[in-house]
């Protein structure tokens, strides 16, 4: 049974200057495996912990082999949390299975550029 591994990539974390010397810390996560019913709880826990650190989050999805609606729900929930706190949330480099599902969900706006 395939699971989900969540790499918190500290090296990719970065303080970024949003202008006017306002710096924010981007937390960078790489997901590997399935983001679905069997792994959703762990992913949701990780996102809740991340939101306690900052509201600037990037998820690299290049090695996600399966994304289902329960994963979309948590991604959207995390996006909304970032948005209400004036943060930023980005999905990066989705695999083909992820692209298929994001497209059907009309969530392409989260790809490729800062989403909020």
């Amino acid at each position, binding site marked *: *049974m*395939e699971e989900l591994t969540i790499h918190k990539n500290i090296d990719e974390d970065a303080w970024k200057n949003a202008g006017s010397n306002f710096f924010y810390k981007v937390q960078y996560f790489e997901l590997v495996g*399935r983001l*679905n*019913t*069997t792994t959703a709880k762990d992913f949701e826990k990780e996102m809740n912990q991340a939101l306690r650190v900052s509201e600037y989050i990037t998820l690299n999805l290049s090695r996600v*082999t*399966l*994304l*289902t*609606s*329960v994963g*979309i*729900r948590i991604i*959207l929930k995390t*996006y*909304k949390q970032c*948005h*209400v706190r004036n943060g930023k949330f980005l999905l990066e480099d989705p695999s*083909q*299975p992820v692209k*298929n*599902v994001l497209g*059907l*969900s*009309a*969530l392409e*706006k*989260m790809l490729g550029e800062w*989403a*909020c």
Partner: protein
Amino acid sequence: MGVLNIKAVKENTGVVLDFVTAELENNNFPADLHSDILVAAEEIFVNIASYAYGPEPAGEVIITSNVTDEATFTFEDRGKTFNPLENVNPDLSSPLAERKIGGLGLHFVKSLMDKTEYRRDGDKNILMFAKAAK
């Protein structure tokens, strides 16, 4: 042709996906289509686990596969009458910050599969989806 008889609880989702994967691999179904079929299988199974039988006790689901140049999976339960393919209208247009999430899973099934069918046969709900090898 394969058959899996399993209790309709979300904790069994991984077993269902393993069954579907094995059926596709054993019949050399094109690998680039596996993930779409796994999405459909999970969404249907979780829907049955969530709504077919009420809180307790969970009933059974019988999943039957027929994989040739088309992959067909049929899900059969004895829960209350329910056609999950009706009234699938997810919110895809409002701004992300206001977006509601309901209905996406079954929207995936209808969009990713080439065929979907539901029928009630006696006390059974029978739901079928199929995807052709390209």
